[in-house]
């Protein structure tokens, strides 16, 4: 590697910078597939590593007596991680190119940290799944792909890494593409791309590689810069979970009563007829206030304050919707869950459910099945859900949830379960 040079200043000129959009992506791959090296390479080649950071990891690498510059030290920030040389927890990294800003959730590959992978995946537009070209599609690949599918990450880029170790073989690449495609046909991932790379040498990461002339696609960074994410947000079903009510109680704003929240789906316009759930009371939108003043319409994921024409009872946990497009309002919920706690799921156990801005008691009525995440089959005769297990359950909640299926809307279709004694978040749920 050559010395790092500063990012070109032009990429940050005001107008250009202010017009950039944001891609959130996550990386998955098993322990030695080169995830950290790939992230290090992306950061390094996009000039996002500073000299003092580089000095620090050079010093640390030397102290450890390692031969090659250890780029994983960039993301493994905790003492315990550096001691053990593994990633324990999600780390977030930031970089920008002249085209786009990126948030990378660098998640651990170990099976025991599936929960952190789910954490990283929950907000991602895109997942990079790394496959070692020598090993091909392995159990880990299937597990990561299943999680990407379960969490409905709209875009997946499969990077066949370590192409340098298989002589940049087109045949080997095609073999892996074929076997992955066959497996992925059982998943629901709308957009899958394949790129042959060498993270170590930088082939097809930032620049197209001369060593693989047979590959006609674009390099990874260009793919990340250009993948279309405009349709990843639901702009159809209008949903506005209310966070808090704003009442200034000042002379100037004596009668002001605004509902603060973040649009979870669809579009709201001033004048729209609305229904507040679960009460079913109706009114009309009088004004919408964004961060910089009054606006005519609001869409996901904007944080706004709405005022209504009528004095209807709306409070935290309620959801403002439109009449022609109602959500589900029910106390019986079918969902897929990923279990996070080392305390096993207690059948008929009570947990706190947090869904949009609503928190309530709930009871697990039934465990329908557990998924063997390596084969994607139902685990026969095994309904015990423990740490990192994925399964389907039926829940009964103390108050109705105002929800959509997770497939339809990631915001109104997701929930977490909380242990009422330890307050720990014990599960992530996706409503079916």
């Amino acid at each position, binding site marked *: 590697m050559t010395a790092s040079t500063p990012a070109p200043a032009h990429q940050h000129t005001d107008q250009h910078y202010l017009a950039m959009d944001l891609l959130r992506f996550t990386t998955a791959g098993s322990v030695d597939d080169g995830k950290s090296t790939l992230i290090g390479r992306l950061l390094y080649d996009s000039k996002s590593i*500073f000299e003092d950071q580089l000095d620090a990891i050079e010093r640390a690498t030397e102290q450890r007596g390692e031969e090659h510059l250890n780029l994983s030290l960039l993301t493994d920030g905790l003492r315990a991680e550096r001691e053990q040389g593994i990633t324990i927890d999600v780390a977030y990294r930031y970089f920008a190119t002249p085209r786009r800003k990126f948030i990378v959730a660098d998640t651990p590959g170990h099976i025991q940290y599936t929960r952190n992978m789910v954490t990283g995946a929950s907000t991602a537009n895109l997942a990079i799944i790394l496959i070692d070209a020598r090993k091909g599609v392995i159990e880990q690949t299937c597990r990561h792909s299943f999680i990407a599918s379960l969490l409905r990450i709209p875009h997946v880029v499969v990077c066949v890494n370590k192409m340098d170790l298989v002589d940049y073989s087109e045949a080997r690449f095609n073999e892996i593409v074929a076997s992955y495609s066959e497996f992925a046909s059982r998943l629901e991932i709308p957009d899958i791309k394949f790129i042959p790379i060498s993270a170590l040498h930088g082939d097809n990461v930032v620049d197209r590689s001369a060593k693989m002339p047979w590959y006609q696609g674009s390099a990874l960074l260009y793919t990340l810069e250009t993948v279309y994410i405009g349709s990843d947000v639901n702009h159809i079903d209008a949903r506005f979970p209310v966070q808090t009510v704003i009442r200034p109680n000042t002379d100037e704003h004596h009668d002001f009563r605004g509902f*603060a929240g973040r649009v979870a789906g669809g579009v709201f316009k001033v004048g729209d007829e609305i229904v507040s759930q679960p009460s079913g009371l109706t009114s009309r939108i009088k004004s919408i206030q964004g961060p910089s003043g009054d606006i005519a319409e609001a869409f996901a994921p904007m944080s706004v304050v709405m005022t209504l024409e009528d004095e209807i009872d709306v409070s935290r946990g309620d959801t403002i919707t439109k009449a022609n497009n109602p959500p589900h309002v029910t106390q019986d919920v079918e969902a897929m869950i990923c279990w996070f706690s080392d305390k096993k799921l207690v059948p008929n156990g009570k947990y706190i459910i947090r869904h949009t801005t609503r928190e309530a008691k709930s009871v697990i009525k039934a465990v329908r099945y557990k998924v063997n995440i390596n084969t994607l089959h139902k685990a026969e005769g095994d309904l015990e859900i423990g740490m990192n297990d994925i399964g389907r359950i039926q829940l009964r909640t103390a108050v109705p949830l105002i929800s959509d299926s997770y497939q339809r809307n990631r915001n109104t279709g997701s929930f977490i379960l909380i242990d009422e004694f330890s307050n720990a978040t014990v599960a992530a749920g996706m409503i079916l």
Partner: protein
Amino acid sequence: MSSYNLTHLAQLEHEAIFIMREVAAQFEKPALLFSGGKDSIVMVRLAQKAFAPAKIPFPLVHIDTGHNFEETITFRDWLAKDTGSRLVVRYVEDSIKAGRAQEEKGPNPSRNGLQTITLLDTIEEFRYDACLGGARRDEEKARAKERFFSHRDEFGQWDPKNQRPELWNLFNGRKNVGEHFRVFPLSNWTEMDVWQYIAREKLDIPSIYFTHQREIVNRNGVLLSKSPFITLLEGEKYETRTVRYRTVGDSTCTGAVESDAADLGAIIQEVASARQTERGTRADDKRSETAMEDRKKAGYF
């Protein structure tokens, strides 16, 4: 508008506002940790926006080490007044006098570590159950691991190996008596985002962020400002340099950078081509490879 897309800066703004409202809704007694630095200035603006037309529903709390840059303190007092906020100040000096903390020895004793003691005492005194802070994940490798809602036990400690998973936009602020949370709405912002936002919002900032002449001593590559808290070592002397500050902490451990950036445009250009991280000028982070993590575990902000 035909396309429903938000720029990244708008997305970050909406996200931070959402987090602040969650804090107001989920906690009984939140506070906003305010130092007068650029990140906390952005925090105050976001808090104003989150609750407008009502006032910011929590006090601004400053843990004053007594080793400040005067300009920051003047600015702090002005901003609190300007926004009509209640300002609570607690002093590390008082913790030392009360025997709760002990001053470091050496040529430039830092009160950075002692701040934790005063902060935890203040949280206990007022029974704050959530403290909003302007920390960003891009600042430092231990901060890159931080959650938006960061749980602290009854001793104020952070346990990085046992953090609550944080999924979608669902933030679990439940806690037992005596425990509290630190909340970081700017987690996903970078140094550049903060400067761009300050420029976009035309926010006032303390004058030391802009170029000026200052008496400086170069200690191990960190340009320290002349102050009563620093004793010159043999062979050291103060010299006048043209500098500004990229980050503002204690004057005993925050280094200046040589710069002639006189306005926000020039600062943005400078940050864009910077080859050192923002915290490269902070001597407190250089004490060990895991200095920040160790401080945070103990309860540091």
